[in-house]
C-alpha cells in the first residue's frame, strides 16, 4: 500500500530536481529543434529521447526509496504561493508508460519522418511535436497544481492537434479542426472550475486543496465543470465526436501517440481530481454515472469497431471502447464510508491505462506498416498478409491478445483487480460489464486476425518495403503490454494481494478461452461483411443456424451506427457536454 500523502510536503526531496528535468529536457529539445531547423530536427529528437528515457528510469527507480512522493518546489516557493511538482506511484507508472511508448514510436518513425529535400514540413512538425507531447504529459503527471495542469493540458492539445493533419488532406484538416474546437470547449470548462476553486479556497495546490475543500455547492459545481471538460478531452462516450476521424486520419506514428497517450493525460487529471482532491465528495450516484458512460462507450465503440471497413478506423473505435473501460474503476473504488478509496480498483484502472497505452500504440504501428505495405487498409483485403508481413501481423496479434486480457498481460491483472473490487463492493453489474468488455475486444481483434491469416484471393504484392525496425519496435511494445502482469507493482500501485498468475492451470485456460470463444460468436453476429469463418466447411452448420439470429444482430448494430451518427454531430455533442456538466452538478449536490 502507498503511504498517505503527508499533510504539508513543503520541502524539496533529494532527487526532486529530476522532476524539473523531466519537463525541461523535452522543452529544451523543442526550442533547439525549432531554431536549428529542418535538417537537424530528427537529430535533436534522437538525442533527447534517450536522455529523457534515462531521467524517467531514475525517477521511477527513486520512488520506492522515498517515504512519500518525490517533491520539488519551483523557485523554492512553497505552495500555496508557489507551485510544487510531485511524483507518487501513480505518476511514476504513467511516466514510465509514456517514456516506453514515445521511445518506441521514435524508433518506428525514424525512417518515415526522415528529412528529404522534397518533404521537410512533416518531419519538422512531427519531431518537434513528439517532444512537446512528452513534455506536456510529464507536466500533467508531475504537476501538483490545478492551474499548472491546465497549462499542461493546453500544451498537450496544441501539440496533439497538428499531428492529426500532418498529411494535409482536406478530411484530416476537418478532423483536426473538430478536435481542436471540442478540446478547447473542454479547456474552457476546466478553467472555469479552476477559477471557482481558487475563489473559494485561495489555493490550487492539490494537497492543500484536498484539506480545505468541503461540500460547498460552489466546489461541487466546479468539480462537475472540470470533470465534464476533461471528459470531452478524453473522448468518453457521448463526447467522442472528434476521436475516430482524428485518430484514424493521423499518420500511424501520430495515431499511436494520440490513441495511446494523449487521451490518458486528461484521464489522469480526472483521477487526480476525484481520488486526491475530493475523494469524499463525488458520492455514489456520480461514480455510477461515470461508469455507466464507460459501459455505453464499451458497447458503442466495440459494435462500431466491428462495422468498420478500414483497419485504422477499427482501431480508433476500439480506443473509444477502451476509454470506457478506464472509467469502470470509479464506482468500484467507492467504499462504505462514502470515499473514493485509493485501493485495488484504482490500481486496476491505472494498470489498464498503462497496458492500453502500450498495446494500442503497437496496434496502430502495426496497422501503419500494413498500410505502407499494401497501399490500403481494407480489412476484407487483408488476406495473405500474414505471409508477407509476418512481423506486423504478429505485433498486431500480441497487442490484441494483451488487450483482450489473456494472462499475464497488464489488462488481465487490471481485470482481476477490478473484478475483485466489484465482488468486495457487491456491484455485480460492473463485473458483467468487465467480462463483456473482454469478449467485445476479442471479437474485433479476432475479426482482423481471421482476415489477416486467411489465404489470399490473389498473390499479395507489396507496394513498399517492409519497415523491419519499425515492426520490431511495435513487437517490443506489444510484448511489454503482454508481460505487464508480471511486473512487481507493489511499490507503485496499491495492489492488494492476489494470487500470482498461474500459467498452466485449467482455470486460467478457461478464463482465456471464454472471451475468445465469445468473441468469435460476436464477430460473426455483429460484423455485417462476409468473413473468413463462413468459407470454412466445418463452420457451415453452425453458421446456418446462426443466420437468422445474425440478421437481427446486424439490424441492432446498424441502429447503433445511426445513433452514433447523430451523437457525432455538433449540436448533439455540445448539448451532451452541457447536460453532463449539469447532471454531475446535480448528482454531487444531492449526495452532499
Amino acid at each position, binding site marked *: 500500500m502507498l503511504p498517505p500523502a503527508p499533510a504539508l510536503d513543503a520541502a*524539496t526531496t533529494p532527487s526532486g*530536481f529530476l522532476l*524539473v528535468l523531466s519537463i*525541461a529536457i523535452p*522543452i*529544451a529539445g*523543442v*526550442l533547439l529543434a*525549432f*531554431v536549428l*531547423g*529542418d535538417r537537424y530536427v530528427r537529430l535533436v529528437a534522437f538525442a533527447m529521447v534517450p536522455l529523457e528515457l534515462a531521467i524517467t528510469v531514475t525517477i521511477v527507480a527513486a520512488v520506492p526509496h522515498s517515504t512519500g512522493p518525490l517533491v*520539488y*518546489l*519551483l*523557485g*523554492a*516557493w512553497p505552495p500555496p*504561493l*508557489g*507551485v510544487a511538482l510531485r511524483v507518487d506511484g501513480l505518476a511514476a507508472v504513467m511516466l514510465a508508460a509514456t517514456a516506453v511508448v514515445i521511445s518506441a514510436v521514435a524508433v518506428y518513425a525514424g525512417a518515415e519522418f526522415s528529412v528529404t529535400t522534397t518533404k*521537410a*514540413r512533416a518531419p*519538422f*512538425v512531427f519531431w518537434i*511535436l513528439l517532444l*512537446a507531447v512528452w*513534455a506536456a504529459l510529464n*507536466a500533467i503527471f508531475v504537476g501538483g497544481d490545478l*492551474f*499548472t495542469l491546465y*497549462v*499542461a493540458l*493546453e*500544451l498537450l492539445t*496544441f501539440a496533439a*492537434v*497538428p499531428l492529426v*493533419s*500532418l498529411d*494535409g488532406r482536406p478530411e484530416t*484538416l476537418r478532423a483536426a479542426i473538430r478536435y481542436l474546437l471540442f478540446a478547447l470547449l473542454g479547456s474552457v470548462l476546466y478553467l*472555469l472550475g479552476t477559477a*471557482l476553486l481558487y*475563489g*473559494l479556497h*485561495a*489555493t490550487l495546490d492539490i494537497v492543500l486543496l484536498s484539506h480545505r475543500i468541503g461540500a*460547498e*455547492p*460552489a466546489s461541487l*459545481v*466546479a468539480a462537475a465543470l472540470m470533470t465534464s471538460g476533461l471528459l470531452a478531452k478524453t473522448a468518453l462516450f457521448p463526447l467522442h465526436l472528434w476521436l475516430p476521424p482524428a485518430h484514424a486520419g493521423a499518420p500511424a506514428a501520430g495515431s499511436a501517440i494520440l490513441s495511446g497517450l494523449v487521451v490518458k493525460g486528461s484521464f489522469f487529471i480526472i483521477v487526480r481530481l476525484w481520488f486526491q482532491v475530493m475523494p469524499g465528495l463525488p458520492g455514489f450516484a456520480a461514480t455510477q454515472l461515470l461508469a455507466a458512460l464507460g459501459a455505453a462507450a464499451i458497447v458503442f465503440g466495440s459494435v462500431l469497431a466491428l462495422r468498420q471497413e478500414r483497419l485504422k478506423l477499427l482501431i480508433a473505435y476500439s480506443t473509444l471502447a477502451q476509454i470506457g473501460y478506464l472509467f469502470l474503476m470509479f464506482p468500484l473504488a467507492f467504499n462504505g464510508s462514502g470515499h473514493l478509496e485509493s485501493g485495488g480498483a484504482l490500481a486496476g484502472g491505472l494498470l489498464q491505462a498503462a497496458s492500453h497505452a502500450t498495446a494500442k500504440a503497437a496496434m496502430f504501428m502495426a496497422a501503419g506498416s500494413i498500410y505502407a505495405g499494401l497501399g490500403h487498409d481494407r480489412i476484407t483485403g487483408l488476406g495473405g498478409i500474414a505471409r508477407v508481413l509476418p512481423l506486423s501481423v504478429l505485433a498486431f496479434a500480441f497487442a490484441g491478445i494483451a488487450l483482450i486480457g489473456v494472462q499475464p498481460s497488464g489488462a488481465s491483472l487490471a481485470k482481476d483487480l477490478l473484478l475483485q473490487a466489484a465482488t468486495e463492493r457487491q456491484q455485480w453489474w460492473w463485473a458483467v460489464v468487465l467480462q463483456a468488455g473482454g469478449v467485445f475486444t476479442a471479437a474485433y481483434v479476432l475479426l482482423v486476425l481471421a482476415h489477416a491469416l486467411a489465404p489470399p484471393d490473389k498473390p499479395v504484392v507489396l507496394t513498399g518495403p517492409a519497415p523491419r525496425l519499425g515492426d520490431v519496435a511495435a513487437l517490443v511494445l506489444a510484448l511489454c503490454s503482454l508481460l505487464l502482469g508480471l511486473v512487481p507493482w507493489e511499490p507503485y500501485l496499491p495492489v492488494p494481494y492476489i494470487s500470482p498468475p498461474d500459467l498452466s492451470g485449467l482455470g486460467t485456460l478457461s478464463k482465456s478461452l471464454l472471451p475468445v470463444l465469445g468473441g468469435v460468436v460476436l464477430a460473426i453476429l455483429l460484423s455485417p461483411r462476409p468473413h473468413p469463418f463462413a468459407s470454412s466447411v466445418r463452420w457451415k452448420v453452425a453458421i446456418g443456424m446462426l443466420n437468422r439470429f445474425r440478421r437481427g444482430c446486424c439490424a441492432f448494430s446498424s441502429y447503433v451506427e445511426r445513433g452514433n451518427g447523430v451523437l457525432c454531430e455538433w*449540436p448533439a455533442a*455540445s*448539448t451532451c457536454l*452541457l*447536460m453532463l*456538466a*449539469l447532471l454531475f452538478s446535480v448528482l454531487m449536490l444531492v449526495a452532499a
Partner: protein
Amino acid sequence: MSIETVIEIVLAAVVLTLGVWTIVVPETFSATVGFVAYGLLVALIWVRLDAADVALTEAAIGGGLGGVLLLGAAARLRDADMMADARPGKLLRAGAAALSVLTAAVLAGVVLLLPDPAPTLAPAAVANAWATGLSNPVTNVLMAFRAMDTMLEKVVLLLAIIGVWSLAPDSAWGGRPGPRHQADPRGVLAFLARLLPPVGIVIGIYILWTGSDHPGGAFQGGAILASMWLLAIMAGLADTPLVSHRSVRFILVAGPGLFLLVGLAGLLFGAAFLSYPPALAKPLILGIEIAMTLTIAATLGLLLAGAPERSTEP
C-alpha cells in the same frame, strides 16, 4: 445611487445586450464587429474591477488582435459562402438556448455563493515582493511565484505557430506567410501605417518597462508591437519574413529559451529551478521580459499572418 453605480449598470446592460446580439445576428461580419466591441467593453469592466493588467490584455487580445483574426476569417467565409448550408432547426436552437441559459444561471448562482471577502493570496504576493524588487504583484506572480506556468504558456504559443505553419503546402514550406498586401500608397491605411508605428512602438516599450512596478508587462507590450507590425504589413510597407529564416526562428524562441536558461542556471547554481538570487532578480526578470516581448510580438504577428503561402523563390 451614485454616478458610478449608474455607469456600472449601464455598462453591464450594454455588454449583455452586445453578447446576445453577437450570438443572434446571422451575418458573420456583424457578429465579428459585435465581438470586438464586446471585448473592448469587457476591458472597461476589468478597469472598474481594478484589474488593469487583465483589462490591457483583454483589450489587446479580445478587442484588437482577436478582432483582426476574426475579420479575416469572416472575409474568407464570405468568399466561400460556407455559412449558407445547414442551419439548425428552430427546436434545436431553442433547446440549445434553454440549456445555455440554465448553465449560465447555475454559474451565476455559484458566483453569488462565493465567500465575501474572497480568500486570496494577494497579501502573500505583496508581502513577498522583496524577493524580486518589483512592486507590481501581477508581474511577481507571473515571473517568480508561478514562473513555470508563464514559461510553459510561451511554449504553447510556439506550438500554436508550429500548428499554423504545418498547414502550409509542401511547396511553400519555409516561404512567406500570407499574401503580399498592396495598398494605395496615398490612402488612409498607408498614412496610418506611417503615422502610428513610431508612437505605438514607444507605447509598447513603455508598457513593458512600466510593468515591473505598474500595470503592464511583456504580453500587453508585445501585443501592441505586434499590431504595429501588422499595420505596416497590411499597408504593404513591409512584407512577412521567410519562416525558414534563422533570425525569425531565433526571435520566436528567445523568450521561452532565455526563461529556460535562467531557470536551469537557478537549478545548477542557485536555490531552485526558476529561482532568482535577490541581488540579480530585477535585471534577470527584465531581461526575460524583454526577450518575451519580442517573442510575443513576433508570435502574435505571425499567427495572424497565417501559414506560409509563397515559396522561398520570389
